[in-house]
């Protein structure tokens, strides 16, 4: 059997090879996603110039695609923290193949999500009003509002995820520094903070990692609960329901795991990391996908069942509208993608087919985006008063900005694959010992 050193060297060479000179394919992908982002940015500028009317948001549906995108991207972020923190506490070894990329995905997703409240504000230059600071208006922010809880929860989430990501990177940056030359060496040396790997440093490092994991775990549950309370704190039928917190958290992990699969299945092939990420590792992610899909399905069933059980006119009317009303086809597609399709993962052969998992992950992403859209729009389209019923159609500006957000996310992720090791080298070495 090869010595640990030989295994370590091979791992380093394989992972760091990905950080070499960009190929044509990489540059094309980067160009496409960057273009999408720039177009989205331009459309945002257009919206700032001409006002929110260029978006499709009207009375009564005052929240549309922008809020859908916000919840969608925050949800995607959660899976990264689950893989990093929660699976660490459960001592699941397979996590070391995914956690670096998943954590990067988390940070980029939260950054992307954070843009949407700004976009949705319209007058984005007043965004600082959301932060509590002493001002001559003698007005503090309304801490009783779920939107302010969002500010705190999502900012905390971004900060803690960034710290967690960086801390995990420190030994790996030392690895990159050892093999780099010139100015790159100096940069990586600076960011690795002079990491040596002495016994004392490892002791403090391990403690820090455990505590960050322990702190990040309640964050996984609380952040998306807070986001769900943006809706649940209202008294709108379809929104005002107690199950929203765990339902949204499960949905977030569900969509996040799907995005991990979407990113890492091609990445493994393109960067030739087949030796280091096996099909069994992907199977473990597929199992989490299946489990969270079941929780989401349970929530769908319970919501419907209890609405009809309660005999409340408005609850029954709303859920009938969701199933059979203006947006019935979106609801049907959503149920297919989130409930029915993942059931196929009970079959072991399908769990172990990377092509199948990749295709499924795309469908799940679509399904989860639709779920947020359906929840938001159907509840607002038909509230209590028939006089104020209406519908909503996203405008091209909203569609363009949504595409732009995907552009931003993939641009950041592509840049990440070139600048930082996509596998947690040190952690994989540890599991190999």
């Amino acid at each position, binding site marked *: 059997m090869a010595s640990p050193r030989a295994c370590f060297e091979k791992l380093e060479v394989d992972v760091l090879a990905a950080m070499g000179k960009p190929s044509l394919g990489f540059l094309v992908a980067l160009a496409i996603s960057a273009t999408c982002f720039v177009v989205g940015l331009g459309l945002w500028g257009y919206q700032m110039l001409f006002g929110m009317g260029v978006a499709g948001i009207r009375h009564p549906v005052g929240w549309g695609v922008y809020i859908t995108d916000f919840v969608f991207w925050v949800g995607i972020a959660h899976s990264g923290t689950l893989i990093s923190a929660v699976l660490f506490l459960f001592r699941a070894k397979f996590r070391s193949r995914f956690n670096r990329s998943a954590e990067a995905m988390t940070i980029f997703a939260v950054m992307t999500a954070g843009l949407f409240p700004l976009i949705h504000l319209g007058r984005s230059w007043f965004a600082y009003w959301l932060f509590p600071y002493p001002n001559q208006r003698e007005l503090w922010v309304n801490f009783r509002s779920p939107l302010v809880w969002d500010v705190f929860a999502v900012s905390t989430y971004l900060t803690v995820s960034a710290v967690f990501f960086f801390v995990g990177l420190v030994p790996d940056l030392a690895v990159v520094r050892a093999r780099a030359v010139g100015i790159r060496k100096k940069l990586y040396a600076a960011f690795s903070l002079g990491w040596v790997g002495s016994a004392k440093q490892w002791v403090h490092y391990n403690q820090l990692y455990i505590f960050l994991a322990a702190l990040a775990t309640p964050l996984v549950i609380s952040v998306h609960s807070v986001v769900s*309370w943006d809706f649940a704190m209202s008294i709108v039928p379809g929104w*005002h329901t107690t199950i929203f917190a765990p339902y949204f958290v499960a949905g977030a992990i569900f969509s996040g795991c799907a995005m991990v699969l979407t990113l890492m299945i091609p990445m493994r092939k393109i960067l030739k990391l087949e030796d280091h990420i096996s099909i069994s590792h992907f199977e473990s992610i597929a199992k989490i996908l299946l489990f969270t899909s079941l929780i989401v399905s349970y929530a769908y069933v319970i919501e419907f069942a209890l609405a009809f059980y*309660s*005999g409340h006119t408005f609850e029954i009317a709303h859920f009938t509208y969701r199933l059979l009303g203006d947006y019935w086809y979106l609801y049907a597609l959503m149920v297919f993608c989130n409930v029915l399709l993942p059931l196929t993962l009970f079959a072991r052969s399908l769990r172990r087919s990377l092509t199948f998992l990749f295709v499924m992950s795309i469908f799940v992403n679509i399904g989860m985006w639709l779920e947020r859209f359906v929840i938001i729009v159907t509840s607002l389209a038909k509230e209590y008063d028939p006089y104020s019923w209406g519908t909503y159609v996203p405008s091209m500006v909203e569609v363009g900005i949504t595409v732009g957000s995907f552009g931003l996310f993939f641009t950041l992720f592509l840049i990440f694959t070139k600048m930082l090791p996509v596998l947690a080298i040190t952690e994989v070495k540890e599991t190999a010992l």
Partner: protein
Amino acid sequence: MTRSTNIPAIAGGVLFVLLAFFTSDASVLPALLMVAAVLQGLYALAAAAHLAEGKWILPARNTILSLHPLLLWLPIAFLAYSSNISIYGWTEHQTFWLSTPFFIARNVVMLLITWALAFSFSRAALAGSEKAGVLAVLYAFAFVFNQSFIAFDWVMTFDYPWISTLFGGYFFIEAMFLGLAALSFMAQKLITLGKAERGKTFMDVSTFIFGWSLLWAGQLFAQFLVIWYGNIPEEQLFLVRRIVDAPLRQLAICVPLFLFVIPFSTLLSRAAKASNAVMTVIASLVFIGVFIERLLFIIPVAEMNPFVVVLALVALGGPVANALWRGVTEDGASEAA
């Protein structure tokens, strides 16, 4: 299960059935809720550990898997309890879903299915068969739906037309919480018998309880916050009846105190997680806290006789405690941690 566990179980079960028939109020319900939660929760933990290939449960696993005969008592106990079904207000204006025969039938069937799956899972797991994985998944489904039915049917219908979609989830999280508390007691005994290691099984269970208390608190808060914030009269009445006036107010404060504040703050320390004395107190508080909460659900809406409540708890819960105690003592086939 052996003679030493079967006889108390039958005696206790008969006593419970007699109590249910000779009372016409909700007195036997808290006991039924608690025992259903502990038994099904323990099995759920065993099933989850089986699927996740967790080793922490192994010393106690065989004991848990031998509990299925007690699960068979649940449908019988429920049938006896349903002799008092007129305590539910909806029996006076019955609908399709809330009609007496359908209500009784679906709950008995659900309890029987859960028992059957627990039984099959136990057999497969003890034999080391590959089917155990599939049966563990099926049991998990049954557990989730059964606890949800218990929550929505047995408890929530008292407050009809009040609904809380989280209620089912809340009950099965509490069921697993009770299972963990029971496991903590079992782990203590297993260590003195040399069948488990403090550093592994006991610490793992303590850590689980630590994390689970936070998870539970999150669910309590989620339900409370939505009702409090919306302030809708139909929903609010559920809380107002239970947390505004003394003495229920003081009892209600005990619930998050016993189930979250004390366990979480105490178990921050590693030494506390490893200590028998601390874990005895905390596990006991978990049982007491959940029991108080179940009482709180019922007190404002149905009559109960305190003496019968306690007697029913002893009748149905005593054999469970006995089976767990004897199980860890007599079980020679446990695998070490």
